[in-house]
C-alpha cells in the first residue's frame, strides 16, 4: 500500500502563525480568544472571537496579484498557509507542478459582506439588487462575489497543479475531510502530492450573528479568554474563530527520494454520517464511534495502540458529552489512559479550518514530545471523565494520535496520524504501518 507522509505545514491561527509559533502556542496553554476587532461588534450579543493576529496579505501580492481585491479573510488566510506549507516542505515549483499533484481544501461558507448593502430603508431588496448591480458595472465588483473554490483554484494556478483541485464544504469537519480525501487520492494512486487542509474565517457580522442565533456560542464575553471551556461543567457554548492550516502530503517513497523529512505519517481516515439532526449530534454517538473505528481499521491500528486523541471538543453542552462517550466506546479500556485535549479551548472553533489545525497539533505533539492542554477546565463535567490534560501541556512519547472532527449536520471525520520514526514491518524507518503495526504505544523504535 502506498503510504503518505506529512512533509510540510503552513498555519495561521489565533495562537500563532507559522509552524514554529503555532507549536509554541499549542503547548503554552494560552488563549487566542479576545474581543472582536475585525468589525464593530459592540451591540452584538457575542463580541469575542479567535482572531488571527499580525496577519497582512501584503506578502501574498507578488505571488497572487489578485489578492489586493479580496476582502474575504478565509481566502487570504488559506493562500498564506499554502505558501508557508510549500516552503516548509522545501519544495520547488517544479516539484509541485503537474497532473500528479492536487489541492484539496476545506473552505467555509460563502460570506455575506454586509457593507455591500446600502439604499433607502423602505426598499431593502431593491437596495441589495442595486448595490450588487452597481458592483457589476464597477472595476472591483467581482471581488465581492467570490466562488467557494477560489482558494484551491488560486493555489493550483500559482503552483502549476493540474491534478484534483477541490473545495470540501463539510463545515466543521471540512478540514479533516480534505486531509482524509487527500490521503485516499495518494494511497489509491490518483496523486503523488496534495496540498490539503482547511481555511475559514467566521469573524464577520453574519458569521458571528448567524451562529449566535443557533445558540451554539458562549455568551460569556468577559473575560473573553475564559469563555470556551471544553469538558468543564460550566461550559455554555463555543467561540468562533478564524484560521487556516495546509499540510503537504506526499507519497512516502517519492518524498524519501527527494530527501524530505517526514513530520508525521497520515495512516488512516474514517467518515460517517449521523443521519440524526442538523442541529445536534446523535446522542447515541453511534456515528462518532463508527468514524473512529473506521479510521482505526483504515490505518490498521488496534484501539489499544492509540496514544492520544485531539478532541473535537467544542465546549457545547452536547458535543463534549457525546464525544467522551464515543471515545470510551471506540477505545474501550484504553480510553482511560489516553490523554485527550481540546485545542479549541485555546483557538476557538475554526469551523472549516478546525480539523486541519487540530491535525497539525498532533504533528506538533510528535515533534515536541508533548501534548497540548485543554485550558479553563477546572471542574470537569461528571459525564466527561477522561484525561483531558487540564491546564498545562503534558510530556508525551506516544506513537499514534487520533484527530476527531464532528460537524454541524452530523458529518463525522477522524484521522489517524503516527510518529514518523516508527519502523514498518520491513524495518524501514520513516513510516508507520497499516496491517503490520509494531510496538504499539511504546514510543519510537
Amino acid at each position, binding site marked *: 500500500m502506498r503510504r503518505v507522509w506529512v512533509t510540510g505545514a503552513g498555519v495561521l491561527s489565533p495562537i500563532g502563525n507559522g509552524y514554529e509559533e503555532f507549536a509554541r502556542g499549542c503547548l503554552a496553554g494560552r488563549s487566542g480568544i479576545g474581543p472582536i476587532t475585525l468589525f464593530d461588534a459592540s451591540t452584538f450579543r457575542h463580541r469575542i472571537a479567535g482572531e488571527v493576529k499580525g496577519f497582512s496579505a501584503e506578502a501574498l501580492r507578488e505571488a497572487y496579484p489578485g489578492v489586493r481585491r479580496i476582502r474575504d479573510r478565509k481566502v487570504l488566510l488559506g493562500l498564506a498557509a499554502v505558501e508557508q506549507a510549500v516552503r516548509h516542505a522545501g519544495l520547488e515549483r517544479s516539484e509541485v507542478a503537474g497532473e500528479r499533484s492536487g489541492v484539496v481544501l476545506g473552505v467555509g461558507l460563502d460570506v455575506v459582506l454586509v457593507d455591500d448593502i446600502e439604499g433607502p430603508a423602505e426598499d431593502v431588496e431593491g437596495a441589495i439588487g442595486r448595490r450588487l448591480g452597481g458592483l457589476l458595472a464597477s472595476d472591483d465588483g467581482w471581488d465581492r462575489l467570490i466562488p467557494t*473554490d477560489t482558494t484551491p483554484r488560486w493555489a493550483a494556478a500559482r503552483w502549476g497543479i493540474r491534478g484534483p483541485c477541490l473545495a470540501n464544504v463539510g463545515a466543521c469537519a471540512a478540514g479533516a475531510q480534505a486531509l482524509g480525501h487527500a490521503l485516499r487520492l495518494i494511497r489509491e494512486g490518483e496523486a503523488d502530492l496534495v496540498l490539503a487542509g482547511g481555511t475559514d474565517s467566521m469573524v464577520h457580522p*453574519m458569521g458571528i450573528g448567524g451562529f449566535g442565533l443557533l445558540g451554539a456560542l458562549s455568551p460569556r464575553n468577559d473575560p473573553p479568554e475564559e469563555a470556551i471551556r471544553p469538558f468543564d461543567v460550566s461550559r455554555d457554548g463555543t467561540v468562533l474563530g478564524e484560521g487556516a492550516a495546509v499540510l503537504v502530503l506526499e507519497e512516502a517513497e517519492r518524498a524519501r527520494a527527494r530527501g524530505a523529512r517526514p513530520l508525521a505519517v497520515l495512516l488512516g481516515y474514517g467518515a460517517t454520517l449521523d443521519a440524526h439532526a442538523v442541529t445536534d449530534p446523535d446522542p447515541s454517538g453511534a456515528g462518532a464511534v463508527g468514524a473512529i473505528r473506521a479510521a482505526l481499521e483504515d490505518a490498521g491500528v488496534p484501539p489499544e495502540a492509540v496514544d492520544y486523541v485531539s478532541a473535537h471538543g467544542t465546549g457545547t453542552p452536547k458535543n463534549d458529552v457525546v464525544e467522551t462517550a464515543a471515545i470510551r466506546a471506540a477505545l474501550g479500556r484504553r480510553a482511560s489512559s489516553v490523554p485527550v485535549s481540546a485545542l479549541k479551548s485555546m483557538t476557538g472553533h475554526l469551523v472549516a479550518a478546525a480539523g486541519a489545525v487540530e491535525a497539525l497539533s498532533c504533528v506538533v505533539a510528535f515533534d515536541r514530545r508533548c501534548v497540548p492542554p485543554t485550558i479553563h477546565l477546572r471542574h470537569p463535567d461528571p459525564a466527561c471523565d477522561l484525561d483531558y490534560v487540564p491546564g498545562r501541556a503534558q510530556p508525551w512519547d506516544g506513537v499514534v494520535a487520533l484527530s476527531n472532527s464532528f460537524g454541524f449536520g452530523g458529518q463525522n471525520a477522524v484521522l489517524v496520524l503516527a510518529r514518523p520514526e516508527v519502523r514498518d514491518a520491513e524495518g524501514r524507518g520513516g513510516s508507520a504501518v497499516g496491517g503490520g503495526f509494531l510496538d504499539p504505544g511504546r514510543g519510537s523504535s
Partner: protein
Amino acid sequence: MSPDALLATVAARLACAEAGLSRGPGRAVADERIGAYVACGIGAAGWRELVPVFRESLDEDGRLSLALLGARGLRRCNPLFAFQVLQNMALCFLSIEESIRGDHLALAPWDGAGAAAFGSARSALLARRVDAALACGTSAMAGIQGTFWLASHGLLASPGLRPRPFESSSGGLVPADGAAAVILERVEDARARGRRPLALLRGVAQEWSATASFAASCDPAAVRRVAGRALAAAGMEPRHLEAVVVSASGHAAADRSEAEGLGSLVDRPVQIVVPGGRLGALFAAGPAAAVVLVAGALAARAPLPAVLEPGRLPADFPLRAAPPRPLDGPTLVMACGPGGGVSALVLEAAG
C-alpha cells in the same frame, strides 16, 4: 431548507427508491454501508433570508449600521439562517431523510465537483468502504446570488435569451436550478440482490487547468487528454463510442473548446447530446443529470433527448454528428465548467 438542499433531498429519495434502497426495515444494504458523495452549489439562500434583517438595520440615511444589526436586526433573522448558507446541508438533509450513515463527501461548487462526486463514489465502492453509493449533484444558481456571480464574470446570457450551445448567436449561460442523483453499486452486489443495473460506470478521469481565472474556457488539449484517459480506464477506444454528452451550455468560447478537444479524439460520427440546450447550466448538478439521462436511455434502449441533428451543424464543426437513434453503446459524459475542471465519465449498457 435551502433550495439546493431541498432539490438534493428529493433527488436522493427518488434515486434510493429507484434502486430499491428506500429507508426502512429490510433495506438490502445497511445504512452504515451506504455512502453519499454530493456536489453542492454555491450558497443559495442568503439574500432573501436577510432582507428583513437588513431592513431593520438601516440607519436614517439608508446605510446599513452594524450597531443596528447587532442591536435589533439579528432579532429578525431566521434562527436557522446558518443552515441556509452552509453548503454541506444538502448532504446532511438527504442523509437524514434517507438514513444514509456511511462514508461521504461534500464538494463545491462547479461541474468539476459534480464529476468528482462520481469518482469518489466509485473509488469508495472499489475499495469496499461502502456497498452502495449515492452520487448526487445539486445547484440553485438561478437565484439572485448565482445570477449576480455569473453576470459579474460576463458569463450570463442577456435577459430573454434561451441557452444556445454551439450556435453562433449564443450569448452566454442561462443558469438553472436542479439536482440529480444515482445509486452506484458493484455489479455483482446489485445482481445478487436481484437488481438489474441501468448502466455500467466504466471509467472516470479528471484534470484541472491550473488557472486562477474563474471564467476560463476549457483547454481543448485537456479535453482530449481527459476523454482519452476515461476511455482507457474503461478499456475502450474512441471508435467504440456511440454518443457523447457535452457540457456545452452557451458560453461560445468554452463550447468551442470542448468540441475541438473532442473532435481531435473522436473521428467518426457519434450522437452529440447537449442537455444544456434544454436545461440551462446546472453546474454542480450537471454531471449527475447527464448520467441520469444516459443511464435511463441505456436501460430502455431509448433515444436520448437533446441530440444534435447532423444537418444543423456548421460545416466547420469539429465533431461529426450521427443522427439520433436508440442508445445501446458506450457513451462519454463530459463536464467542463467554470473553475478549470475537465472531467469525463464513460457509461455502457449493462447487458
